[in-house]
């Protein structure tokens, strides 16, 4: 896995996020109040509150293109909310979010979203293939049927996650890992440039987890930008190129090597970083040393 691109220098790892626009990690991308960034995903000054209680506070982030990015933070840090607000599913109190310089409603086609697996009813009377074909609905348009071309695209996506044999199974007959693969195939069927995934490894077996990671790495190798909400610190260092440490604010963001430091983690998790997690992190750290 390639960790350092040609522009892999350290990103601003602010302990406390400031309102000033952050410098971009890659390429000559202009950021600023007046000129929106052309990064695949640019989050600028975003604040979100539920019932007057802030969930995200002044979040500034430009996602580097073609990277596999982990969004890491403790429970309740606003990780899922960050994805939802980017997709206009949750209203924001302030700030702007753009995808390649355009608001989401103009870029639906290039953004794919994988919600948490528990967010749907798996007893629904529908086959795996029909679920995956939903990834094509944005292209098909209102009133139109799912044509043969789109069904074939859906089948190809199922094949990519190794689930072609299960295409006509009702989804309740699939295991948790297989259901997660179906969700992933649905995102693949969208053929997007940016993938936003909410805990794709939650409740899946080890084999599925490594298959999913391999697929995500393939996607980023093909130039797609993949943002993954993740909470396992131990595997974060292995899986991702970049990480964004989030706890209501962006604590730090940048390449894994320079960002996933003990100091940053402590700042992200506050007092919640347990001894075991620290030890696990130290272990992962020592394994990575040549």
């Amino acid at each position, binding site marked *: 896995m390639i960790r350092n691109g040609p522009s892999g220098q350290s990103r601003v790892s602010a302990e406390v996020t400031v309102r000033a626009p952050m410098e971009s990690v890659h390429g000559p991308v202009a950021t600023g109040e007046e000129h929106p960034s052309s990064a695949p995903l640019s989050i600028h000054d975003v604040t979100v509150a539920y*019932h007057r209680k802030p969930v995200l506070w002044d979040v500034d982030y430009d996602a580097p293109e073609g990277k596999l990015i982990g969004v890491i933070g403790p429970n309740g840090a606003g990780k899922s909310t960050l994805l939802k607000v980017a*997709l206009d599913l949750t209203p924001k109190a302030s700030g702007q979010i753009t995808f390649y310089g355009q608001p989401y409603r103009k870029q639906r086609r290039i953004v794919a979203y994988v919600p948490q697996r528990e967010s*749907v009813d798996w007893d*629904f*009377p529908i086959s795996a293939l029909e679920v995956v074909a939903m990834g094509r*609905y944005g292209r*098909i348009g209102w009133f139109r049927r799912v044509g043969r071309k789109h069904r074939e695209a859906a089948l190809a996506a199922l094949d990519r996650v190794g689930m072609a044999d299960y295409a006509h199974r009702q989804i309740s007959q699939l295991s948790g890992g297989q259901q997660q693969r179906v969700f992933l195939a649905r995102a693949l069927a969208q053929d997007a440039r940016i993938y936003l995934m909410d805990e794709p490894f939650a409740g899946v077996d080890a084999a599925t987890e490594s298959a999913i990671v391999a697929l995500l790495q393939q996607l980023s190798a093909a130039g797609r930008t993949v943002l993954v909400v993740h909470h396992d610190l131990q595997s974060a260092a292995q899986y991702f190129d970049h990480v964004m440490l989030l706890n209501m604010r962006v604590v730090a963001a940048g390449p894994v090597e320079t960002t996933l430091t003990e100091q940053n983690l402590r700042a992200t998790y506050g007092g919640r970083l347990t001894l075991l997690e620290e030890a696990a992190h130290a272990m992962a750290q020592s394994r990575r040393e040549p």
Partner: protein
Amino acid sequence: MPTMPAILATTTWTSLDVWIVAIGAISGVACALPGVFLLLRRMSMMGDAISHAVLPGLALAFLLTNTRDPYVMLTGAAIVGVLTAVFTQWIHSAGRVDEGASMGVVFTVLFALGLILIVQAANHVDLDPGCVLYGDIEAGPLETLRFAGLALPRSVWINGGVLVINAAIIFALYKEFRISTFDPTLSTTLGINATFMRYLLMTLVAITTVAAFETVGSILVIAMLIVPAATARMWSDRLGNTLLVAAAVAALSAPIGHWLALEGPAWFGYPGVDTKTAGGIAIALGGLFALSVVFAPRHGVVSKALHRLRLSVRVAREDLLGLLHRLGELGRPAENAMVNRLMRATQVGPITLGLAMRSLRREGLVTGRGRVQLSQRGAEAARDIVRSHRLWETYLEQHLALPADHLHHAAELLEHVTSPEMREGLERETGQPELDPHGKPIPRSPD
């Protein structure tokens, strides 16, 4: 085969009974279609709420326009129906109240308001609250309405119109209804606004409910919305089939229901009395649902019981083979009575045992009458079972360090799920020992 008009002309289609059944079937199918989506959204109670809450809409529409024109009534009901869904959502999110509780607050208040308005209106005209609650399907055929040169009962026009609207909208927006019901979040991100689809469904439910009002009343309409959908779910694992089966169940319930209403009272010693067809339809729906719970192919009680029986027969067959192999090792003849006694001692029921023995004989794995013998193929199968069992005992002892007296029970369970591939894996992992942990020989294949 005679053409359609010829059938209509030769049957007694003008008779009251046929029309009552037709009205029941039409309104039933009209309800069943949106009902499927209510059920799948786990919002069955929303149908209940809307069917009660539309009352003030009807009353207000009547008070404002002073007509019982169906379009006015349906519009008033649709507006209040959607408002019910909107209010419920508001109270749920703004007041941080559970959705069910919020629904309860909204529809009871609206229903009470509706009753007051109806009583107000009833001072001026004849509007019967009882009819609103239970409907009056029997009166349906009496009032005809001429439209496009065709004089049909008013309720056929109204319910038929609603049926056509429901079917057309659900057909045209099938994929949109499917995605917004299954995964509203993804639906919205793809540009199919789930909130819009939700309120579209609520609108359909509201106008359907109001149209069915006159027929079955505001309480039994809930049965028509939900029971066909729940019945269809027993029979189908795809959305399209669920809609079709629900429609068929609803259509079928009308003639059965009418027949029950005519004949039923006589069974209980009240000959010459007939009850409301609406009640009969609800009972017919309940009956069809109960039959489905028992007999449906995959989800039914009978099919599940048969599946369990098949499984236990398979296990008993394998246990029988294993027993015969072990008796052979001891050099003991397998007397029929003894085999039965030994098998019964392992909690196998007589029916299961009988079926297992019969299938072994039928397949020629076991021969002989008074004394049971393994055929050559039977001996091979038995050897595989015992081999799996003893390999598992070895594996469990080596890898989990289970005490010797715990091995047998676990191996007994595992031997029934062991494929040839798994057996090869066991051979590799255990290093192919000659004896199991109890010192018994692990039988080998002759190759």
